[in-house]
């Protein structure tokens, strides 16, 4: 694993490929987060809302995406995390998490981040500003 000391503009953190999305994962997120909107867990409710099936919580995908940065906890922390929800995540979708360094200042690293599905479409995208500790 490279450290964030070495990273250069244009470099990417190592992608993470998630397991295909399954229902129990979304039920667990509902329980852990307290977001029990039934379009994320119950087929009939998703259909009533005009969806072809249940969809993942946007915040589940955003929560997953941040784990690209977790291994660097001794070097700094996520100061700003900004996400737009671009597309829906359905059951069995295969999501890949990505981060590319866009800008490097003294102690701030700005990454373009996104989660894409198996068709290569962004489901969420945005920016992470990682603040590095100076000592």
């Amino acid at each position, binding site marked *: 694993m490279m450290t964030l000391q070495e990273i250069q503009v244009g470099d990417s953190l190592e992608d993470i490929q*998630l*397991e295909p999305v399954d229902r129990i*994962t979304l039920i*667990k*997120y509902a*329980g*852990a*987060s*307290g*977001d029990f*909107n*039934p*379009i994320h867990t119950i087929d009939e*409710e998703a259909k009533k*809302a005009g969806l072809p099936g249940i969809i993942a919580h*946007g*915040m*589940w995908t*955003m*929560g*997953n995406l*941040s*784990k690209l940065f*977790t*291994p660097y*906890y*001794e070097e700094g*922390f*996520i*100061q*700003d*995390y*900004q*996400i*737009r*929800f671009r597309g829906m995540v359905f059951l069995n979708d295969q999501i890949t998490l990505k981060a590319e360094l866009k800008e490097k200042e003294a102690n701030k690293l700005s990454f373009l981040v996104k989660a894409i599905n198996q068709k290569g479409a962004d489901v969420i995208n945005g920016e992470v500003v990682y603040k590095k*500790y100076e000592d």
Partner: protein
Amino acid sequence: MFKHLIGKQSAKVKNSVERGAVKKFAESIGDLHPIYLDEETGRNSRYKGNIAPPTFPRVFDYGTIEDLNLPNKGLIHGEQTFHYERPLLVGEDIYCYSEVKNYFEKKGTMGEMGFLVLESFGEDTSGQIVFSSKSTVIISEAVRKVLVP
């Protein structure tokens, strides 16, 4: 229809960054890193304890903003931001509240859409802000019609 609520805040609610809740949350996003879960890793880190994942504030109770009656169905989460002064520490108490930051309507593909911007804050026991977050919630015309009394 929510314009008159701009500037309204909820009263602060005391929340605790509970070890068990952090563990469950980390599991649910598949981020089982020892810095969130393992006490020894926490003790040996610069934080001298465990921390919580950056989207953990989704768990907190932010209190109720008077007259803001949002349905629990039919809302679309458009955007989300978090800003941190430092990571959240497992075991600490955080005082949370929300404010209606903005509301506007815009013509979109699904008719006239309402955009509600809620800003939330978490302060530590000394009153220092640890994080703030902004959620943009999109309310479709169909849902707004149901809400109008």
